């Protein structure tokens, strides 16, 4: 079970969180013309990386904040975590 550092609450076990997928995906702006390809990329196409991956988790049984987690998908190592509005450098 992963041990995730919620930037709001501190170290918490994985069973307090729910997974939210790739955090690098940006939703196209509202009312903007979007090509089929662009929209497919947003809705469906994911890289499914092996290695370092920036992903979303929600601290669902805690502060309910969505957070960003930088995790290695192969080793499960977690490098850094960020608040929703924090810039990932």
């Amino acid at each position, binding site marked *: *079970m*992963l*041990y995730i550092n919620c930037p709001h609450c501190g170290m918490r*076990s994985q069973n307090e969180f*729910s997974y*939210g997928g790739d955090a690098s995906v940006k*939703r*196209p702006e*509202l*009312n903007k013309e*979007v090509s089929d390809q662009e*929209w497919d990329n*947003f*809705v*469906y196409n994911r890289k499914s990386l092996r290695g370092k991956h920036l992903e*979303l988790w*929600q601290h*669902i049984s805690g502060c*309910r*904040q*969505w957070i960003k987690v930088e995790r290695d998908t192969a*080793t*499960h190592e*977690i490098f850094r975590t960020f608040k*929703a*509005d924090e810039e990932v450098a």
Partner: protein
Amino acid sequence: MNQAFRIENSGLINRDKKLSFKFNGKTYFGYEGDTLASALLANGVHLVGRSFKYHRPRGFFGAGVDEPYAVVQLYRNGETEPNIKATEQELFEGLEAKSVNCWPSVNFDIGAINNFLRIFLPAGFYYKTFMWPKSFWYRIYEPFIRKAAGLGVASIKHDKERYEHKYEYCDLLIAGSGPSGLASAYAAAKNGAKVILAEDKPRFGGSLLTSDVNIGNQSGKDWAEGIIAELKTMPNVVVKNRSQIFGYYDHNMLVMSEKVSDHLPTTRKYHPNKRLWYIRAKEVLISSGSIERPIVFGNNDTPGVMLSSAAKEYLKVYGVLVGRKPLVFTNNDSGYETAIEFKKHGVDPVVLDSRKNPESEIIDEAKNLGINIKNSYVVVAAQGYKKVKSADIASISEDKKQLGKIENIECDCICVSGFWTPTIHLASQSGNKTKFKEEIDAFVPGQSKQNEITLGAANGVFTLEETLKTSFEAGSELSKKITENDNEIAIPNVVEKKSSQHDKFWCVPLPKGKNYKRFLDFQNDVAVSDIEIALREGYRSIEHVKRYTTLGMATDQGKTSNLNGLQLVSEIENKVVPAVGHTTFRPPYTPVSIGAIVGREVGKHSKPTRKSPMHSWHEKNNAVFVDAGVWLRPRYYKRGNENLFEGSKREAKNVRTNVGVCDVTTLGKIDIKGPDAAELLNRVYTNAWLKLPVGKARYGVMLREDGIVMDDGTTTRISENHYHMTTTTAQAANVLSHLEYYLQLVWPELNVNVVSTTEQWAGAAIAGPKSRDLLQKLFPNSDVSNEGLPFMGYMEGDLSGVKARIFRISFSGELAYEVNVESDYGNFMWEKIMEVGEEFNIQPYGTEALSTLRIEMGHVAGSELDGRTIPFDNALEGLVSKKKDFIGKRSLQRSAFIAEDRQRIVGVVPLDKQTSIPEGSHLVKDDKAPLPNPKLGHISASCWSVEYDNPFSLAILKDGKNMIGQKLFAMSPLKNKVIPVEIVSSHYVDPKGERVRS
């Protein structure tokens, strides 16, 4: 027999407490502190079971967790548990155990015929033999295998024992209380670290309990006792015996099973049977020791053949002689230690040493005691069927290829030592890259992936002096990092005998003309010949060899077999062992009770049960409940002998003619506040929300980004910047997360807050032509007329002093209202409604009637909004705004979603107006078409229309728009039904929606 093999002046058992127990129906006696194995051995019982595949007689091979085959079926306090290692089960008064794997009895076992037919049962025999004909599988093969194989019988009774889970955090978790565990725990504890020390056995001390060493000025055993006593007094230390750490998971999470009650005749009141610990440790110290390795020789599975370390442990811990004429077969000095113990207790052993001229302090001591030692000698084969009677022995050439003349020597046990294998299971589970250590012919932990370190024998360090030194240092260093304390500890002097190099020899060649079975894996009956076959048949990867032969599988996880198997593969393949590599060690290290894994989450506790504030009223009024997600909801209120069909029909009918009340507390409720609340709603719902006036409700549909309908419900504008959203019961949690996702991540600029208020409000839906009259009586000071409270209107009311929210919304298609009060007043509200409603013939209605009412109205619910449908499919396209953007809108342009013959909701009526259509039935054009019959759609929901008094269903049908009036067939292969049907509008009752507005 009365403990004829128990000796005086030895052992740590409590001879003041005699215990009686039964094995295979016969009564024996042992002492407190015995294991079932030691007590049986004290009584001279060596035959304990039959082997897995060949049903050969099985005895005791080890003395603890290393035991591969002495498993029994245990009976305790009216319960039975399979797969119990006799070497681990502590004796208690009244214990009962039986052999497994034998039928009809351990002494006469029909399956043992496999032993003589074993030419048919080589490696891969399951794969080869039982492949065909297919029809034989269920009738013949499976029942045969089930009866003949297996390691016991699981109980089918409800387990009345209680199991607990516990979560714990510590600085250092130490697995094993041998010398390295004790030293590191002590050093870390002295630095103030929070330490958990776990020992799987009842006694702490590990190898110190049996080895002849001194630490400081005391025996190893006394030193261990002193350390444990001191650790127990320290507030920052938890020491746990009978506790096996069996799994090492991600991020230093380890799981430990504590046997709280297994050593007692019954579980004490308020105590669990077992406690599962989830431990998150900053650092893990693995001091799990090592397991003695067998040497492979003919018939090496005969009862009476056992590890020399086990023989020593039975002698020193339990005061039991495993034989009176022991033969010790060794390739290193450990065998001598066992021989010396025998000699000291008046028994004359013979030692066969595969080495030519070994010299060491230990060997000198054996020689001085006058022990008969034969060098360059090996056991070729054990003789005796149910017990060792003698051994064929021979001298062996220096290259270990040629055997001398075979001699037979009488003996009643063979104690074998093929050197030591570090127990690296936990390290390997942690992701540690293990490495092969040539000097000890075994793998040891290498590069760590997590915060773990392996110490002592588990790390291939076999001298006490080095073990203590490195362990004190490691405990001290690791704790210092955490606590920043640095208390120096003097490392005590160690007196131990030096030993000499072991012989790199592990398997005795077969003598000419002999075909003895030489077992590698005792639990799974894997012999040398099986591995040879697997390799001959082309299996190369060790993982494949493992699966084909079952080597190192199952509960044993290769504890005694692993390295010998690898040696064999490497020899045949002409590779070095590290190139062959070892298979992955998987948790659990030892079997764990399913009960312990499940913990308290059984039966009603397997998930939370949520009840509405009116629940006790429903109970008192004969509600029959149904699980709705985690909620319990009344399905119908039973009157007399009514069944579900009759009851729900009565309730639904009463709604259509008079008035009914339904508990809708379970609906998800979300409170939405903030200046941008309307904007948020406008983006998440498909329809327009910016112009909803205060005091008005609106029905809304929300989509996922892929265009699929996520949920529906009404949202009401309570005040300027305050909305009350309702969701379906099932989607309440998901919708909240969905809103939070967009507010926190996508549109953080929106100034809105959302919070779940599902549990804050109790809800009652009042529906039926008389509902307004009832409502007026409930709220005499409010104007609830059609003008005062029009359809989709909202107002606050005073319910006999309780503030209430009144919504004019309808799910039933009738004139209807929903009243909410704060949860604590829910029951008050309900009783008030029932009391005032009496004159209007009010009846409560449950979910079944609720479904009937919505189905015949053509209102969609979860069975249509099933994660596969878009608004059009549900005839909700009128709610999809063309002007504004919203979540999922772009996806609605997908070609499949705008196809001409897109699926759509329809009504379905059986032609005979009699036969109810099973939900899930497929709609087809031709009921006689060959399979697979093209499916046009499926029945999503069925009811008995109370309006028309005939069955009515909803269906999602391909090209549904143009299918009205068509005749099709509803087929349910599950129910074996074919029903001719007509397709009609989904709005079966009141298609213009006049009633809700009346």
